[in-house]
Every structure is written in C-alpha cells, then in structure tokens.
C-alpha cells in the first residue's frame, strides 16, 4: 500500500533488459560527453536521445514528479542568477554583441547571453533524464552482480545494493517519525527560526537513526545465519551475462563521446560552438 516515488520498478523494456553495468557505462560516457561540450547541436541530440530512452523505459510522470519539481525550480533559479551575476558572459565567450533590449543602465539582454544560457539549460536537461533512467530501471542486485563481475569486491557490491534496496524503507520511516513528532508540536515548516529548526530536526534524526540501527542489526543477523561471507567469492542469482544489446549500447555511447571530442577539437576548435561569426 506504500507509494514509492523513487525506487526501482520492474518492467520489461529494452532499457530494463540492459545489464546494470552497461547502463552505468553508458551513463558515464554520455554525461562525460555533455560535460565536455557547449555545442548546442550535440547537446540537443543527446537530450532527444535521453528523452526517447525515458519513453522506451516507460517511466511515468507520477514516478518522478516530486523530483522534477525540485529540478525545475533549481533550473529556473539558476537561469536567472546566471544572468544577474554575469549578464555579459555570452558576449565575452562569443566575441560579438547583438543587443535585443536593455533594462536601462548597463543591464542588457543580448542574443549571445541567451544562447549561452539556453545551451547551459539544455546541458542540465539532457543529463537529468539519464540519471533518472539509471536509478529507475536498474535492478540493484543485478547491478551489484555486474559490478562484482568487473572485479569490485562483493561486500562493497552487496552494501551498495542493500542501500539502494532499503532506501525507500528508511524514507518511509522518516515520514512516519516526522509526522509523529509534528503531532507533538515539532514545527518543521519555515515558520521557525533556523537554529530552532536545526535543533528540532534532531528530534526526527535521533529516532530515525535508532530505528535504522535496529534494521541493520536485524538484517546483518539474518545474513550471517544464511552464510553471508562464507567464501571469498559468491555467485549471483540475478546475474545477467552481457548480450548483444549491451555491447551495442556501450558502443553507441562511446561513439557519441568520440564524436563530441572530434567536433570540439577538429571543427569548433573550442568547447563552444559559435553561430555568431
């Protein structure tokens, strides 16, 4: 009956079928590509790709609504603050100045600035879906098994997968505790002063830590009793061998990264793409 807004959901789509490892590799390759360029053509290309992947993965708006709201708020604030602090940055980068209109005084809005800021906005917008896809479509245990497959210690892998696994439970605990404390009068809204709020958040954190410790003790006993750590190696039920689709996806992502570098080094001769000259 619990609603879990942000956790792995089990579906059978192309993206879900990919191994966790290849998804991680693709995620890293594509985000590096985005980080290494300010070329809006490439960024838009990756953005379309990542939104298409979200479609393919059948991620529903309701799953990510809360997160999207935060992200959008961040982006809007970021957009305006970038302008307020550096209204001439675009002019500096592109070396020309096409004034659209001015607010009087020295604050002008230029085509260059808008172009720079939109490029930046799209950079964020293309990375975020990739992260969402990774978290929502990766089976934690399968991911752990593929990490283990490339040589990471299995204890680290299980720790990681258990964290992903129990995160929603701890989030549920947090909600229950917060409500119970609010009922006793602990005001968590912005009405209280900062120092007060810090003090009061302790009244949620301490019970949360206590209940989480209880959880950890229980699960570590349960794992001990079922022979966890018996051998230096272990096998994985959820292991998926890499398939053709995995290799293709990784190759495509790698190609995107190489292409990005090629455009940057050999065509633009700069991290920026300049349409103004």
């Amino acid at each position, binding site marked *: *009956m619990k609603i879990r807004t942000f956790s792995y959901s089990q579906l059978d789509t192309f993206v879900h079928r990919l191994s966790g490892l290849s998804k991680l590799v693709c995620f890293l390759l594509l985000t590096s590509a985005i980080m290494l360029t300010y070329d809006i053509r490439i960024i838009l290309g990756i953005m379309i790709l990542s939104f298409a992947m979200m479609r393919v993965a059948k991620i529903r708006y309701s799953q990510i609504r809360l997160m999207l709201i935060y992200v959008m708020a961040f982006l809007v604030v970021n957009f305006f603050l970038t302008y307020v602090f550096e209204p001439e940055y675009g002019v500096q980068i592109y070396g020309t100045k096409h004034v659209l209109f001015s607010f009087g005084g020295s604050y002008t809005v230029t085509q260059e600035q808008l172009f720079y800021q939109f490029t930046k906005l799209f950079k964020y917008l293309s990375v975020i879906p990739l992260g969402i896809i990774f978290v929502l479509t990766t089976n934690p245990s399968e991911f752990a098994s593929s990490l283990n497959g490339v040589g990471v210690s299995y204890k680290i892998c299980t720790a990681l997968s258990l964290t992903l696994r129990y995160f929603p439970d701890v989030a549920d605990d947090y909600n*229950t505790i917060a409500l119970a*404390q*609010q009922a*006793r009068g*602990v005001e968590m809204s912005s009405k209280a002063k900062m120092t007060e709020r810090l003090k009061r958040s302790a009244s949620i954190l301490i019970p949360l830590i206590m209940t989480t410790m209880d959880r950890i003790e229980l699960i570590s006993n*349960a794992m001990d009793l*079922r022979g966890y750590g018996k051998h230096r190696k*272990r096998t994985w039920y959820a292991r998926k061998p890499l398939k053709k689709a995995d290799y293709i996806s990784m190759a495509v992502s790698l190609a995107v990264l190489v292409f990005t570098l090629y455009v940057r080094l050999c065509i633009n001769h700069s991290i920026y793409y300049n349409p103004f000259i």
Partner: protein
Amino acid sequence: MNDEMIVFKDFGFQYFEQSEPTLHHINLTIRKGEKILIAGPSGSGKSTLGNCINGLIPFAHKGKITGSLTVAGIETKNSSLFELSSKVGTVLQDSDGQFIGLNVAEDIAFALENDCIEQKEMIERVRKTAEMVGMDTHLAKDPHRCSGGQKQRVSLAGVMVDDVDILLFDEPLANLDPKTGKTAIELIDEIAASGKTIVIIEHRLEDVLHRHVDRIVLVNDGRIIMDDTPDNVLAANILTSYGIREPLYLKAARYAGCEITADMKPASIETIDTEKLRSPLKYWFEENKGRYDAKERKEMLEVKNISFSYDGVKPTLDGINLTIHEGEMLSIVGKNGAGKTTLSSILCGFIKPDEGSVLMYGEDLSKYSISERAEYIGIVMQNPNQMISKTMIFDEIALGLRIRNVDEKEIEKKVDEVLKICGLYEFRSWPISALSFGQKKRVTIASILVLNPKILILDEPTAGQDYYHYSEIMEFLKRLNEQGQTIILITHDMHLMLEYTERAVVLSDAKLLADEKSYQVLCDPDLTQRANLRETSLFELAEKTGFSDPEAFVECFIHYDRRMRADENQNVLLQSA
C-alpha cells in the same frame, strides 16, 4: 545413538557484557524428527537458547560457554557460524526486516549464492523449494509486497533451500494476524512431516498447540523448569505463574472448578475430552451469567463517511462511519492492509480524507494543523524507538510542552503528574536507555498524555510482548481508561480485544465490516474468516460442551475473567501498599 540432533550437557552461557549468566546448567536432548516448543516469558533465556543452537552464540554474540552443546554431532563452540548455518535453518521473527533479495526468488537463493552454487543449479533449487512452500507462482514478486503469510513462506524457503536438518523458528507468530498465524502453524506441521527436526520458540502456547507438538520445554530464569508432553505440561497448571498465557478453554474450565488431568488430553481444544467439564461449566454459567451492566456514554467523536485512496484507483477506506463515546476503550481490528493505520492517520490529521469529515463534539477538526490537532487526538506509535528523541525521561515527556512555550514551572507540575499516572515517577531522572521495552512504551504514552488529548490512539501497544508485559501495559491502559481517558487500540491481538475492550470495530478491504461487542466478533465464524481473525477457543468449548447459546457463555466468561483480574490486581496493590 545417532538420532540425537541437539544435545545440551550441563550447558551454561554468559554474555560478556552481563554480570550474570543467562543460561544455567541446561540439560536437553532433541532427537531427529522431533517437534519441540520452547516456551518462556521474555528474558527467560529462551531466545538465547535458540541462538546457541543456530550459532549466533558464541560467534555473533560473544560470551562465555560452560558445559557442552552438540548440534548434529558437532560441538558448537569448536565450529563456526557457517558450518552451523548449513545444519540449522533459522526463521527469525519479523520477516519484513530481513529480506535481502529484491524478489522472492532472489531472496530464497541468498544462501546458495553465498555457497557459490552455479546460477543454473540455483534456479532449479529455488524453484523446487518455492514449490514446497507454495510460493512458486510468486517468484518475481517483491517480498515486501507479499501478504504476511507469504512473507513467512519466503523466509522459510530461504532457509530450507540449504537442505538443513534442523529448522528453528524464533517467535513465528509475533507479527501475524490470527488466521495467518494458524496457517503458519499448519505449514510448519507439514514440513515436520518430511522428517526435519523442528524447534519453535514462542510464548503463544495456545496458537502453537493448534497442531501436535512432541514436547514443551518450559524455560524461566535461564533454567529448564519442565520438559514434558503438552498434555502433562498443561495439566501441571504452572504456566500462568511463569508468565505464559494458559489456553482460554482451560482457564474457563479451571474457573468452573474442574481439575485438568493429562489423560483428558488438554493440549488442544480439538483433543480435549469434555465429558467431565460439561456439568461444572453449566453450573458455573448459571451462577454467573447476566451479571454485567453497560454504561450510558456521551457521543464524542464522529467519523462521517470517510473515504481515502492512496493511488486514486483502489480505495484504502471506503465510506467509513463510526462514533466514539466519552470514556470508551475500543479496538479497531482487521488484517494487515485493511486500512487500520490509514484510519488512525486520518483521525490524527496526518493525511486528509478524499471524502468525509471527522467531528469532535460536532466541531470539524479539518481546520486544525497536525500539531494543533494533537490536543484533541494523540497517537502512540508501535515502536517506542520511533518516538523517543531525548536522553532523559523528563525531557522526553516535556518536549511537547516546551515547544508550546508552556511556563517551565507549569511543565514540571504537569510532567510530574503524568509521571505518577504512568508509574514512572521514581525513574524521572533516569536515562531512557536504562528502561525496559514496556517502560519505554510508557514513556511514549506519557509524552502524548501530557498534551492532554481527548482521545488516545495506540498502534499495536503490546506487539512482541509476552503475557506478563502484555498484562502490565494493558492493566496500565485500563487504569488510565478508568480515570476517564478515551482510548482507541489498533490491534490484531484477539486476546487484547476480548479481554480489555468492550467494543470492536472490524475493518476489511477498505470497508467497515462490523461494529459490535468484542466477544460477538470472535463468535461469528463468517466474520472472523473475512477479517483474518480466528474464533476464540471458548466458543468451541461452549459448542463442544453443548451450550445452546455459546455466545452467552463467552460473554459470561469475559466478564467473570475481568472481575477476577480486577480482584487480583486489587490484591497486588494492597500487598504492595
């Protein structure tokens, strides 16, 4: 003798962090294929005994061992946790918190993964084991989304997959509703038939004895008090003095002055010979029936046509109407997921209903914020650790008042008053960490009570408690209720509902199924079936002994029992004064 599976010889154990041994001079032999119940109150050492068998002692919990314990021929102190875990499979209580896998199959496979079994063989063995416990059609399901009974099947499969010789169940009934608990006991019995040695640690004797058990080992203060067949143990009439609840049908028989002997086969309501009980019970009933009075009470809280759904599709509550009266103590019962917790969240204003309203003396409560509403309706969570945030008892209870900027002198007065009501006054300057579970529970009750709510809601107040602590908490709530506090209990403990609450509200699949006297609920086979409850054994006893109106018999027992317990408590109070 090769069929000795578990042999304790003059065995003793002391945790390093404790000054006294927890187990003394244990001598106990369990043979292959036997089914043993280890019973005892909390703190008796019964769980420690179990942990010695599965190897958590001495390998995870360190301490000093004296004497000898062999499991399947292996001297445990010279073995390892891993070696023992391949002989003994342990099903811990609270299966919810110990699922490791993301789906049922993976969780069952965990032990095999650790044993480096190849994936192909693993899939085959998981399928076979799942079939044995009837979970083979749910392999892809998230274990957390399974029903209570399914969860336990998954835990069971998780230890059986290793093909262990001994299965150890640590309080298997603790978190199950009565009907699921009954099925669990039946399932354990089926597995026992396959030749495995079974050890059940549990204090809910009547429920375990629903199926045959070879022996009961009664433990108290780290010593074995009795080790005998269920019939002999029950006939010995010593359970209550060791803090274990006696089966209700036997309690009724004793009230009627019958002597219980082993040859009557008292182990279960199904086996007991009722011939000798017939006339004493009839006589007792005629003497005591009809001696109860119901109080007229004023209406207080009105729940009007409440509906709620988490996802907008499937209703969690559907058109609930309910009236609560001043000074009442009632229980809200129903299986997991029936909407009990949602209803209490709505009463406290944690969530807003999609439809309907909650009125207190005709005033709509929806205009108040969560913290304002706490002055009308207060809630005590199931696990005290979910609420306690201070180190000192006084500060914890004062928290709500301090936040409301009450004058410090006033706070002191109010907290002291509540401390006295809750029997915590002498501990007022103690750190909370030094308290027992029941005392912690009382601290959380006190911390809500100090805000003076008109209605107090408690979520499973006695979950995981043995009979002694159960009685302690419930008697305290009863006294509170007698002082005029209105109390709502959310529970699936049938004893609690029968013994302490006059009225029961039954929720099932989002609907209010019944709102009537508690004993009536437990005498209605159709209703108990639908709400995952069980009929009380009193009802069966009345039927077996030929009462024309079994319900009247149960009602008579409940009121008689309440009077007896009230007298008993009176005596205890007089003695301590």
